[in-house]
């Protein structure tokens, strides 16, 4: 019993902050009269996320430690990815603060604190060293996400999005849980490090491979990797734009956190039959590579045909998940570092793009890309910012996207043996993606104005998000050393594996 009291609960400070802010906002929301605007609540939530970000940064020098037998673990991996999750959450909350949909909304307050609860789930996922914590945290994230997807209650597409998300998410959870049950059955423990240790002693390579594939499929649903991506475009299109931004960035980051925590920790040294008998993870590389290749190809090719901005960004996010999976499949020694840099760049450019799309959708009431036509004529700065984000998404030198993609690419070719096929697929799909990103840029800058009514002023929240993301994208593009300095603190995540 004493261990409970002696645990260092201050390691959980960022989580406590997020939980406390969410609860306080809930209480304020129910105490406020109905007709008052809920916008200050979103600002408060964003402030809470920033505070938690500061608390996480303050914890960086702390030694890796865990509370209660690893059910909560604060190692360098947890710290690094919590920084990303919190930054993404704070930017999404800024977009919520600027959210002003045409159909009106009674749920601005709920939006703010449900998003914080989802963020709490994502943070706990990054910090869990136990299957049970991992599972419950992921559920907290996904259940909150289902509700966020359905918050535009008067819009049929939003209801459809919530329903599709629930059904697909439920299937993914079931498949993942089925895989976990075999791992638990073979080891008799839920502690990830202990599982990794005990798996080395088991001699059930077939069963382990089955469990691995089940877990991989379950996580692939969450990442929207092809062929488990069918829900993503509909959900992204139907959900309110700030929620879409949250799913595309924070949920995807949490998905990769889950992938690394689950599969790498447990299976890196597990026995296998086939290519590499000493590591199930390495012998499963071909399966992950196929998943990555398919995701890159389908994501970029289908994006060519989209005219809805939200669907386009959905398919583009699928393609980006493919690049990230390719980086994972490479399993180079700097895999986690390159994934971190890519997710950071992805966060900056996507959040910026979604902030502008949110403004356009709120103003024009549709997310057709006609809304962008000739934007340069009357909002040159806005058009320039969106152009920057699109260039970064395409991976043009001088932007964050280029640096990030370069890292993944190098990871693919420097490993022994090199993954030249994946690298080639990545290069080709990047070129394909130029087509739709540059189409949008042409629409922005070189076409005459589509509608005579100029866009209204951007709200403070959206402007703040756009400015922060634009600065970040440029800074990371011209001075990637900034990100390397942050990464250097984590020392290549040496304490990630037991």
């Amino acid at each position, binding site marked *: *019993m004493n261990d409970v*009291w002696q645990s260092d609960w201050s390691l959980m400070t960022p989580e406590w902050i997020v939980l406390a802010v969410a*609860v306080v906002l*809930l*209480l304020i929301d*129910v*105490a406020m009269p109905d007709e008052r605007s809920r916008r200050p609540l979103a600002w408060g939530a964003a402030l809470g996320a920033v505070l938690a970000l500061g608390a996480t940064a303050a914890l960086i020098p702390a030694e890796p430690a865990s509370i209660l037998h690893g059910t909560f673990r604060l190692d360098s991996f947890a710290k690094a990815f919590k920084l990303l999750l919190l930054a993404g959450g704070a930017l999404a909350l800024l977009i919520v603060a600027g959210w002003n949909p045409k159909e009106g909304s009674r749920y601005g307050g709920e939006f703010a604190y449900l998003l914080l609860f989802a963020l709490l789930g994502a943070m706990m996922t990054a910090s869990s060293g136990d299957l049970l914590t991992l599972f419950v945290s992921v559920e907290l994230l996904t259940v909150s996400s289902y509700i966020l997807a359905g918050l535009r209650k008067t819009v049929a597409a939003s209801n459809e999005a919530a329903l599709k998300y629930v059904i697909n998410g439920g299937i993914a959870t079931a498949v993942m849980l089925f895989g976990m049950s075999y791992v638990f059955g073979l080891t008799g423990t839920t502690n990830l490090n202990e599982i990794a240790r005990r798996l080395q002693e088991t001699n059930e390579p077939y069963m382990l491979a089955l469990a691995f594939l089940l877990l991989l499929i379950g996580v692939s649903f969450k990442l929207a990797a092809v062929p488990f991506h069918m829900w993503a475009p509909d959900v992204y299109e139907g959900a309110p734009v700030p929620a879409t931004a949250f799913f595309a960035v924070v949920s995807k980051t949490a998905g990769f956190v889950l992938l690394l925590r689950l599969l790498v920790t447990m299976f890196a040294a597990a026995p296998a039959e086939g290519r590499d008998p000493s590591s199930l993870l390495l012998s499963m590389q071909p399966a992950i590579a196929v998943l990555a290749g398919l995701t890159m190809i389908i994501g970029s090719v289908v994006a060519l045909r989209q005219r809805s901005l939200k669907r386009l960004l959905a398919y583009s996010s699928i393609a980006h998940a493919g690049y990230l999976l390719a980086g994972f499949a490479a399993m180079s020694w700097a895999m986690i570092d390159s994934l971190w840099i890519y997710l950071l760049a992805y966060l900056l450019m996507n959040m910026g793009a979604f902030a502008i799309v949110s403004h356009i959708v709120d103003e024009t009431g549709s997310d057709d890309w006609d809304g962008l036509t000739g934007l340069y004529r009357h909002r040159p700065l806005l058009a320039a910012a969106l152009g920057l984000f699109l260039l970064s998404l395409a991976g043009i030198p001088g932007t964050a996207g280029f640096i990030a993609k370069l890292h993944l690419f190098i990871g693919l070719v420097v490993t022994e043996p090199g993954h030249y096929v994946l690298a080639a697929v990545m290069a080709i799909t990047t070129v394909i993606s130029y087509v739709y990103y540059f189409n949008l840029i042409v629409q922005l800058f070189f076409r005459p104005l589509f509608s005579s009514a100029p866009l209204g002023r951007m709200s403070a929240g959206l402007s703040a998000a756009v400015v922060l993301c634009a600065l970040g994208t440029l800074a990371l593009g011209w001075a990637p050393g900034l990100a390397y300095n942050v990464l250097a603190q984590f020392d290549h995540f040496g304490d990630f594996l037991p």
Partner: protein
Amino acid sequence: MSNIYANSYAIVFVFLCLGVLLPVGALTLGRWLRPHVPSEAKETTYESGNNPFHDSRIQFQVRYYLFALLFVIFDVETVFFYPWAVVYDQLGLFAFVEMVLFITLLALGLIYAWKKKVLRWM
């Protein structure tokens, strides 16, 4: 040990069979004994003397659904109380603190439901 455990459920099984067989047997026996002379008036649904009209399966107020949802959630929460109560005297103060936190969050949900006028009828 395992045998004793399984055998104690044999009694449960016997009772289950008895429970199922009793109504089946009684009704079958009744069917054999009673006279069977159906007429149209006898086959109408008994509605305290009123003539039944309309379909019996009508559409209910949507409001009920929220109560059902709240019921499920509080039902799940009750499940957590039982093992807590069983081990409470062994775990001491920390288990108490934990449950206070749990109930606080539960109470927040109730306050939310109350303030959003879910609990009010009409």
